[in-house]
């Protein structure tokens, strides 16, 4: 569905993305993980044409995307990292504006607005202006707005930042349900639990370069499915093992307190991006 070919971006002679290549298939939930400033948001902004590439191409369904690709852009919506809502509009007006921008027929946009706002608990706030909403409400509204046109591809740039745990799980239910119905998602997040739960495949990005693409479980297996955290005098030391038996054998010889647990994506992230504590 989406093809990123040799994508590069330079800001004032500083390379922030270099030679990025990957494909996202229809119906996939694809994650972009990396530390702050790795280039994840730049990729999202390039796909949504908010930025234009310094080199390379982005293709959707075989056609190159540009700012004037009206038909291609009809298929994509974005939830950006920052709030991108007009403060003077009400919740309903934000949805109405989105429906009009995406040429959704009146009946359809009103029906979808009601359904989405009800699901996200914003229906009772529909007459409030955006500037009166809390951060979490704004975040929910941005997701509702992105889902209104029923796009084929949704770009989610840290969509659940600022949401309480209950609302976050509510959002996960909503987007994973839509993904099961065939909607494609590209997600950037710093919540590893979120990425592990939602994503079919994950791309690790570091300093503008693509390190690896794999399903989260495969990344975890490669590192070792069992982790042993040892509380040493110098701090926490962490070792990974391919099975429980090996981990137990290692732990049996330890003099320091330890914890045995399943490895998670956060371990992979820390290990792969070279910012481990051991």
């Amino acid at each position, binding site marked *: 569905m989406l093809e990123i070919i040799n994508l590069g971006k330079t*800001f004032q002679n500083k390379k922030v993305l270099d030679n990025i290549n990957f494909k996202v298939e229809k119906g996939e939930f694809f994650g972009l993980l990396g530390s702050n400033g790795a280039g994840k948001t730049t990729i999202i902004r390039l796909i*949504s*044409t*908010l*930025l*234009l590439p*310094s080199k390379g191409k982005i293709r959707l369904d075989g056609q190159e995307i540009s*700012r*004037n690709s*009206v*038909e*291609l*852009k*009809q298929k*994509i*919506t*974005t939830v*950006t990292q*920052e*709030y*991108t*809502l*007009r*403060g*003077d*509009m009400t919740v309903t*007006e934000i949805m*109405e*504006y*989105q429906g*009009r*921008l*995406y*040429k959704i027929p009146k009946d359809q946009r009103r029906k979808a607005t009601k359904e989405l706002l009800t699901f996200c608990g914003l229906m009772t706030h529909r007459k409030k*202006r955006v500037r009166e909403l809390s951060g979490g409400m704004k975040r929910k509204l941005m997701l509702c*707005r992105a889902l209104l046109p029923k796009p084929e591809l949704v770009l989610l740039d840290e969509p659940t930042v600022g949401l309480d745990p209950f609302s976050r799980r509510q959002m996960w239910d909503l987007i994973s349900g839509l993904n099961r119905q065939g909607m494609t998602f590209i997600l950037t997040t710093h919540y590893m639990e979120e990425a592990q739960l939602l994503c079919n495949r994950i791309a690790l990005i570091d300093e503008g370069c693509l390190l690896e693409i794999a399903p989260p479980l495969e990344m975890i297996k490669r590192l070792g499915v069992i982790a042993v955290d040892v509380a040493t005098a110098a701090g926490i030391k962490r070792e990974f093992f391919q099975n429980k038996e090996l981990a137990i054998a290692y732990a049996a010889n330890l003099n320091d307190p330890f914890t045995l647990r399943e490895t998670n994506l956060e371990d992979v992230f820390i290990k792969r991006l070279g910012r481990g504590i051991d």
Partner: protein
Amino acid sequence: MAILTVLWEKWIEFKHEWFKITVTAMISPILYLITFGIGMGMDKMVDGHPYLEFLIPGIIALTTMNASFNAIGMSLNVQRLYERSFDNVLASPTPLGQYIIGQMIGGSLRGLYAGCLILGISFLFGAAIHVNVIFFVVMLINGMAFSALGVMAAIISKTHADISRFSTFVILPMTFIGNTFFSLTGLPVILKMLVQLLPLTYASSLLRQLSYGEGVDWLSLAVLVAYTVVFMLIALLRINRSKNL
């Protein structure tokens, strides 16, 4: 059609802020009318007409200019750099040409609204000026020119302060020297040439001639339309080509 969507957005903006918009549009022109029209020039004649009748078309021209420029330039600047809501428009399937034309029409309607308010107040001041359909058409075209300039300025600006600077260096001087408060007849040649480079000069001249009951100066109208097209094309080019909007 995306133009209608932009007009709807401008209508919502107006609906929420109509009182502030109305008051803001009237303050400066009323002060100009009082200061220059009543305070300084009630008994003067310019080009064979009472100064107040000379002044009012100029004030209407500068009012439509300011209202249109602010409605688009300031608003789009805030949407682009502060609220970032312009990102959502840019990512949407809205044809950018239609978006700019929509902004221009929306801005010119705001200019027309402000101009009509001043026209009404001018009649209260006892001004005897002729108004016909072309008078309103000129107000609309003037509004479109400065709305297009507003889009251009908002897209070029890198900070909030830039749009204020643009206003200070471009709009404010035009307010005073764009054939608004004094006749061009006695001006030194170089200053006259400079004034004739300004789009507002042509809008003021057109409105003044119409208000005197004279015909349309087609050349001035053509120049004003040309400025509108040039500003629109620069804005479109910039919005299409800018790698980091």
